[in-house]
């Protein structure tokens, strides 16, 4: 495995210039996540409309290129989607990072699938998987209104 497969251009670019790195005005759901091993922190803010569609999403936090890029790509991708769709996409993404060779979700367009697969390089680096998944776990926490902070050391 070449290091370039992990640090693809798109990841470096999103890592350097993360999208949606701010605090959403009038958010109605949020959750925090922490990776104590790396010191990565993420705080996700969601603004859902009455039809449970994500009208706006943003995050604050700091971390490595992988975790920042992952949060950036994720927030870009779920914006405008419905809560249930998003949960399914998160499951699919976590499944792909852990075990599945590809993404299966019907809720993803081809270009979205391609973009997410850029993060699949992390599968070869077990110690780095948590960097890629932190913001995704935290997103679910926000949707489900779980008050306790996500801690990667307490996840499977």
């Amino acid at each position, binding site marked *: 495995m*070449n*290091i*370039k497969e*992990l*640090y693809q251009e798109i990841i*470096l670019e999103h890592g*350097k210039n993360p999208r949606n790195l701010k605090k959403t005005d009038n958010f109605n759901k949020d959750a925090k996540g922490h990776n*104590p*091993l*790396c*010191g*990565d*922190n993420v705080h996700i803010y969601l603004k859902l409309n009455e039809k449970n569609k994500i009208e706006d999403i943003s995050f604050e936090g*700091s*971390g*490595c*290129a*992988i975790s920042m890029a992952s949060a950036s790509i994720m927030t870009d991708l779920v914006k405008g989607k419905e809560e249930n769709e998003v949960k399914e996409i998160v499951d699919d993404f976590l499944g792909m990072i852990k075990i599945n060779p590809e993404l299966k979700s019907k809720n993803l367009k081809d270009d979205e699938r391609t973009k997410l697969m850029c993060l699949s390089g992390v599968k070869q*680096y077990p110690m*780095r998987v948590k*960097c890629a998944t932190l913001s995704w776990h935290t997103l679910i926490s926000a949707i489900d209104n779980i008050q306790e902070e996500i801690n990667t050391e307490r996840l499977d």
Partner: protein
Amino acid sequence: MNLSNIKKEFPIFKNKNLVYLDSANSSQKPQSVIDRINDFYSNEFSNVGRSVHALSIAATNNYENTRISVQKYINAKSKNEIVFTKGATEAINLVANTFGQKYLKKGDEILLTELEHHSNYVPWHYLRSLKGVKIEFAEVNEDGEVSVESIAKKITSNTKIIAVTHLSNVTGAILPIKEITELAHSKGIPVLIDGCQGAPHLKLDMQDLDCDFYTISCHKMYGPTGLGILYAKKKWLEELPPYQGGGGMIKEVKKDSISYGDLPNKYEAGTMATAQVVAFDQSIKFLEKIGINNVIKHEQELMEYGQEILKKNNSVKLIGNPKEKGAVLSFTIEGIHPHDIATILDEDGVAIRAGHHCCQILHETLGVAATARASLGIYNTKEDIDRLNSSINKCKKIFNLK
């Protein structure tokens, strides 16, 4: 002593690509240590101190022989002041637990420093809820050092024990532990030194140092995992209660009373890490063969060379600048997270550590979430440092840094 061939004594370096810069985490093992474990299990194995058959007698002699080697190596007054534990962590837990049980009460203070590894903080933390004690932290200065004055500032009439590191695993600062001990003793306060990083790299003389407790991690000292050492002055081992109960640590057991074994057996309950203890004798021999002064000279030269090279490298920032510094180079690169650095360096066979190195309090004080750390051992060379530097440059290139 020519150290250029020392790498050959470590079979792991048959992999020529490996640049191992993680010795503060754990050191590699020389062939003699590996062989001794194999030999002992293959030809000489028996439990120690229990049976009277020849195997058991020989194993017991080997086991006790390591105790004597350790005693001499650290210049302890008696071999009975050397207690084997499962690691330095257990050694500190032993002291915190037994000292806390016997001597600490509500309102008492334990004085640590902001440099401490979690293993010299968490064991004391338990005493907060158990005994209602307070924990104070002597402050680290901007160079990553803790001075005697900084310790003195935090000593009060309630301070009951001081526990400090010998050598910081992050900034590399070597603490003035003799002066700290003198100061503490002048106020009647005992001192524990966390020697995890000190023992593999510095000269040890317990009688000169006069500290009350000194803890050692054997796997950082070219020895096996699963083994640590607690040095404690005899009077403490006599006065403190036992830590764990079980076989081997007793004298007489009756339904209504138990008496404990002599030192050091009182603190070695259950079957110990026998093979590891026996093999650790080879680690001591290995270090004695090189000579601690040669170890210090070699590692100082390398550390200074590394410091010079990294200081010249744009965007690399060294963490801490202590006057007395051991062979640890912690750094950050503006714009690249330490975990990204470590992953990219690893691709070139350069093994470093990234994260908080079990020192979250220090990282918070320094205002960084994480650092990258290259830590040196006796087997490292200038070429290793050069390869570290060129991998850092590759890393910067990937991230488009100058």
